[in-house]
């Protein structure tokens, strides 16, 4: 009897360990920003907004795309309903649901928001994705005069959104992927971002992986920093 209990306990602990490992596995997310758009100063961002890219438009109002995330304890449909209600209740926003849009990882709910600013009327496209108790909100804004052309750029960026377990696996070219893996392994002895190995790694990420965009490049560098540099302190 005792042996059976011990075996059951061992099995239960194994299951718990397995469940914890799966739940704590760090996932990453990114989108490919439009070409030549610049990163906004992270110090200027609101809470929950992780990154923002600014484009060069034809008006004084510059187009932008940002991403905000939050942990949620409601279903995807409930979260979307909350967001829709919030926009509809806002007297400064004209809301329109645009259905669904497919991204690289998930299906997103798409909205169109119209508002007035000091630079004239502005349209926003917003995509809401819910995945495993986390909401990802992508918002692109543009002057109403540029909507026809700029909306395509914004939607293409939304469609590039992906949630991945491993950023390096996003590199399709095997030789380049191996080169990157080698550079990351080379950081094992790095103690700061001033080290030669880090500089080499940073140069490689920025120069050879432009096609994946600055969001991905930043995530790869931050991940490597957290794994090697911050752990060595």
């Amino acid at each position, binding site marked *: 009897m*005792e042996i059976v*209990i011990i075996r059951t*306990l061992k099995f*239960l602990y194994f299951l*718990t360990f397995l469940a914890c490992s799966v739940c704590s596995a760090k996932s990453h997310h990114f989108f490919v920003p439009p070409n030549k*758009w*610049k*990163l*906004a100063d*992270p*110090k*200027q*961002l*609101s*809470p*929950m*907004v992780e990154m*923002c890219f*600014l*484009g*060069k438009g034809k008006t004084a*109002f*510059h*187009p*932008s795309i*940002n*991403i*905000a995330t*939050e*942990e*949620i*304890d*409601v279903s995807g449909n409930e*979260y979307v309903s*909350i*967001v829709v209600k*919030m*926009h509809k209740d806002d007297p400064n926003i004209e809301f329109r649901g645009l259905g669904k849009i497919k991204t690289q990882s998930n299906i997103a709910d798409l909205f169109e928001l119209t*508002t007035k*600013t*000091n630079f004239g009327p*502005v349209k*926003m496209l*917003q995509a*809401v994705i819910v995945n495993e108790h986390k*909401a*990802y*909100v*992508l*918002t692109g*804004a543009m002057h109403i005069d540029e909507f026809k052309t700029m909306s395509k750029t914004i939607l293409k960026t939304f469609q590039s959104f992906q949630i991945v377990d491993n950023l390096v696996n996003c590199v399709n070219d095997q030789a380049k992927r191996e080169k990157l893996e080698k550079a990351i392994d080379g950081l094992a002895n790095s103690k700061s*971002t001033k080290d030669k190995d880090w500089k080499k790694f*940073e140069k490689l990420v920025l120069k050879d992986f432009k096609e994946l965009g*600055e969001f991905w490049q*930043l995530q790869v560098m*931050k991940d490597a*920093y957290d794994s090697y*540099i*911050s752990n060595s*302190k």
Partner: protein
Amino acid sequence: MKRALLLLLFSTTLSFSLNARTTPREGSARRKGSAAAYSTFDSTALSMLLWGTGLAVVIVTAAILIPSSSSGDSNHSHS
């Protein structure tokens, strides 16, 4: 021995169920949809800044990495 094992099993189950009950309660205290609200706000607020304020990825990397290694504090200018 048997009693000790059963006690261990009971306490593990209890701690897991307590954890499962507290997590949603903590989440409910926060206003849901905040990410969408902040994202909407920033999309227009930052677009009205000068384009020249956009930064190179290497500068942003430094901006992200340096504060995280020195201090956990972050101040936001929005009220």
